[in-house]
C-alpha cells in the first residue's frame, strides 16, 4: 500500500497560516483558539503510523454464464489493524452492467472486524470479463493521511452466447460410422426395424421374428437399420460485421452457431468450428460436453480482425474439415472473400448449407423510419437477393435469417425445402421398398430420429426465441 498526505492536509495548513497571520495582525486571541483544532489534526501527521493491514476476498456467484445472466459479486474485507474509514471499489468490467447494489462501499472497521458487501451485475456481452482488480482506500480518522492498495487477481467470468433451442436442423447427406441418431439405410445393429430375412447360422435368437416364422413355417429374423452420427462443421464468417454494438451480425451469427452446435451435439454428432476471418481459428470435430466447452470458448473469442491478407481454407487441416461433413456457413455475406470460400467448398463437393444473417434487418432496426432509409433498405435487399441467387444457381441451399425472428422458425421451413429439393423423405418409412435389397451406402441417411436428449440447455433459453435486435448506436463497425 502507498500512503500519502491528502489535499485536506494542505487545505488545513493554508487556513492555519492565514488564521495565524490574521491573529498577529488583529491581536485577537480568539484566532489562536480557532487554529487549535486545525493544528491538532495536522499534528497527527507527525506520528508515524504503519500501513493498515487487512485481508480481502472476492467471490463470484458463477464463473460461467450465458448472455444477459446475472452474477452476484461478494467482497469481504477483514481488518487486522484499525481501518477508520475504508472505501472498497469492487471490479466492474467495461461490458458488464450494474443490476443492483453499488460496487463501492465505505465502512469503518476495528481490528478483527469483518465487513461484507455485494452487488449484482448483468452480462449482456459475450466474452471473458476480468473481475480482477479491487481497489481499497483507507483514510485516517482526520482525513489527512490516506493509503491506497490495488489487489489484482485473475478472476475471469466467461459469458457464453445465448442458446436458442432448435428442433429442426439442416440434415446431413452423409453420416459417419459412429453411433448416432440418424437412421442409415445400412442394416446392422440398431433399434429401427428394417427388413426380415431367413434365419442363418450365427443369428441371435432374440432377432427371430416369431410371427413371420410361424406364418411361413421357417425361421425368419428381423433386421435393423444402423444408427449413425454425422460430422457437422460450422463455418463462421468473421471478416465483417454491421449493426449496433453487441447486436451486430457477428453477434447474431455467434448465437446461431452456439445454438446449432448445442443441437447437433445433442444428436451425438461430431461438431467442429472454423472462424473464417482475418485470422482463421478452428476446433476439430468432436462430440460430448467437453467439445461444447471447446466450441463455446472459441466462439467467445470470435471477433472481426481486419486484414487485407487473403485467407482461404488451405490453412485448415483436412481433419478439421472432413470430406463427409455437413458444412454450415454462417455469414452476413458482406465480404466477397467469404462468398468465394463458400463457393470453393461447394465446388469441392462438400455438403454445404449457407445461413445468411440478414444485415439489412439488423441495420434497419437501428435507423429511424424515413422514406430515404426505406428506399435504401429496399435497394440493399434487392442487391442481396441477387447475391443469394448466385448461391442458389450453384445448387447451394441458402437460408436468410432475420435476427428479429427466432432461428427455429427459419430452420423449420428450410429443412423441409431442402429435403424436398433433394427428393429425400422428411418423415415416413425410412427405406423405399425398392431400395431394401440394394447394398446399403455407408453414408446415406434416411431420416433422423427426431429431436432428443438435449445437451445442457440453460433453463432460461428453453422456449426462449432469439432476441430481436437491441437499439443502440446506429451503425456498428463495418468491414
Amino acid at each position, binding site marked *: *500500500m502507498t500512503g*500519502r*498526505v*491528502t*489535499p*485536506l492536509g*494542505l*487545505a*488545513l*495548513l*493554508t*487556513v*492555519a*497560516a*492565514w*488564521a*495565524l497571520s*490574521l*491573529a*498577529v*495582525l*488583529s491581536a*485577537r*486571541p*480568539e*484566532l489562536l*483558539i*480557532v*487554529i*487549535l*483544532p*486545525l*493544528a*491538532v*489534526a*495536522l499534528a497527527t*501527521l*507527525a*506520528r*508515524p*503510523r504503519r*500501513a493498515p493491514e487487512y485481508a480481502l476476498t472476492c467471490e463470484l456467484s458463477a464463473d460461467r454464464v450465458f448472455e444477459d445472466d446475472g452474477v452476484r459479486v461478494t467482497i469481504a474485507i477483514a481488518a487486522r489493524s484499525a481501518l*477508520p*474509514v475504508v*472505501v472498497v471499489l469492487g471490479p466492474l468490467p467495461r461490458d458488464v452492467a450494474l443490476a443492483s*447494489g*453499488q460496487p*463501492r*462501499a*465505505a*465502512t*469503518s472497521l476495528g481490528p478483527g472486524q469483518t*465487513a461484507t*458487501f455485494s452487488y449484482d451485475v448483468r452480462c449482456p456481452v459475450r466474452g471473458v470479463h476480468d473481475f480482477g482488480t479491487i481497489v481499497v*482506500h483507507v*483514510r485516517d*480518522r482526520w*482525513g489527512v*493521511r490516506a*493509503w491506497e492498495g490495488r489487489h489484482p487477481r485473475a478472476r475471469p467470468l466467461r459469458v457464453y452466447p445465448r442458446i436458442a433451442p432448435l428442433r429442426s436442423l439442416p440434415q446431413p447427406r452423409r453420416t459417419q460410422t459412429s453411433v448416432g441418431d440418424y437412421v442409415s439405410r445400412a442394416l446392422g445393429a440398431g433399434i429401427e426395424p428394417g427388413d426380415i430375412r431367413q434365419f442363418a447360422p450365427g443369428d441371435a435368437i432374440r432377432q427371430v421374428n416369431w410371427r413371420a416364422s410361424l406364418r411361413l413355417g421357417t425361421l425368419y429374423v428381423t433386421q435393423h437399420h444402423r444408427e449413425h452420427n454425422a460430422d457437422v462443421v460450422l463455418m463462421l464468417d468473421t471478416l465483417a460485421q454491421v449493426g449496433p454494438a453487441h447486436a451486430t451480425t457477428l453477434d447474431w451469427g455467434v448465437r446461431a452457431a452456439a445454438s446449432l452446435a448445442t443441437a447437433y451435439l445433442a444428436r451425438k454428432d461430431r461438431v467442429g468450428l472454423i472462424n473464417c476471418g482475418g485470422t482463421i481459428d478452428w476446433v476439430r470435430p468432436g462430440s460430448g460436453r467437453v467439445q461444447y466447452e471447446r466450441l463455446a470458448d472459441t466462439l467467445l473469442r470470435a471477433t472481426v480482425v481486419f486484414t487485407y491478407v487473403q485467407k482461404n481454407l488451405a490453412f485448415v487441416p483436412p481433419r478439421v474439415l472432413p470430406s463427409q461433413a455437413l458444412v454450415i456457413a454462417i455469414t452476413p455475406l458482406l465480404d466477397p472473400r467469404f462468398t468465394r470460400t463458400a463457393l470453393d467448398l461447394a465446388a469441392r463437393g462438400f455438403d454445404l448449407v449457407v445461413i445468411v444473417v440478414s444485415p439489412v434487418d439488423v441495420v434497419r432496426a437501428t435507423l429511424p423510419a424515413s422514406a430515404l432509409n426505406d428506399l435504401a433498405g429496399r435497394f440493399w435487399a434487392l442487391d442481396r437477393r441477387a447475391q443469394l441467387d448466385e448461391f442458389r444457381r450453384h445448387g447451394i441451399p441458402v437460408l436468410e435469417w432475420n435476427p428479429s425472428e427466432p432461428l427455429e422458425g427459419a430452420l423449420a421451413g428450410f429443412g423441409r425445402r431442402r429435403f424436398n429439393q433433394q427428393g429425400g423423405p422428411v418423415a415416413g418409412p425410412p427405406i423405399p421398398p425398392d431400395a431394401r435389397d440394394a447394398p446399403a451406402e455407408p453414408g446415406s441417411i434416411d431420416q433422423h430420429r427426431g429431436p432428443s436428449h438435449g445437451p445442457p440447455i440453460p433453463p432460461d433459453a428453453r422456449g426462449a426465441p432469439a432476441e430481436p435486435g437491441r437499439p443502440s448506436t446506429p451503425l456498428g463497425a463495418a468491414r
Partner: protein
Amino acid sequence: MMRVPAAVFALVMGAIPLGVAPIKPVAIGVGVGLVLAAVGIAGLWRWPVLAAACLLLTDYTAALWTARAPVNIGGAVTFGLALLLLLQSVELARGLRGTRVEARLVRSQIAAWSGFATATLGVTLLGLALAGGLAAAIPFAAAPFVAALAALGVVLALTAIVSGRPRV
C-alpha cells in the same frame, strides 16, 4: 448525505461573525462566504470551500476587530471546530461519492468528531491557563514580535510536518 453536515458547519461559521458584530459589511462578507461554500458543497469542489473558509475567517476577524468585544472562548472554539469539520466533511463527501456508506462508519465518525470537540475544548482551556502565565513574563513592547515569531514558527513546523515524507 455527507453534504448536510458540511452545510450545517458552514452556516455555523457564518452565524458566529454575525453574532459578534451584526453589521452590514460583516453580513456581506458572510453572504459571499456562504455562497462560495454552497457552490463548493453542491459540486464537492475543494477550492470554493477553501476560499469560503478563508473568507469567513477573515470576516470573523473583522467582526472581532470591529466589535472590540471581550474574549469569547466558546465562540472561538465553535468557529475553529466548524472550520475543521467543514473541510473534513467536504473531503469525506468527495471520497464517498457514489459509495454505499454503512451505518457504522457514520456512527464512528460522529463519535470521533464529538470526542475531538471535547478534547479541543479541554486543550484550549489548558492552553489559556498556560498562556496567562507566559504573558506576564513577556515584556509588553516585545509581545508583537514574539507573537509574530511564534506564529511563523508554528506555520513552519506545520509545513514541515505536511511536506515531510509520509510516515507510513
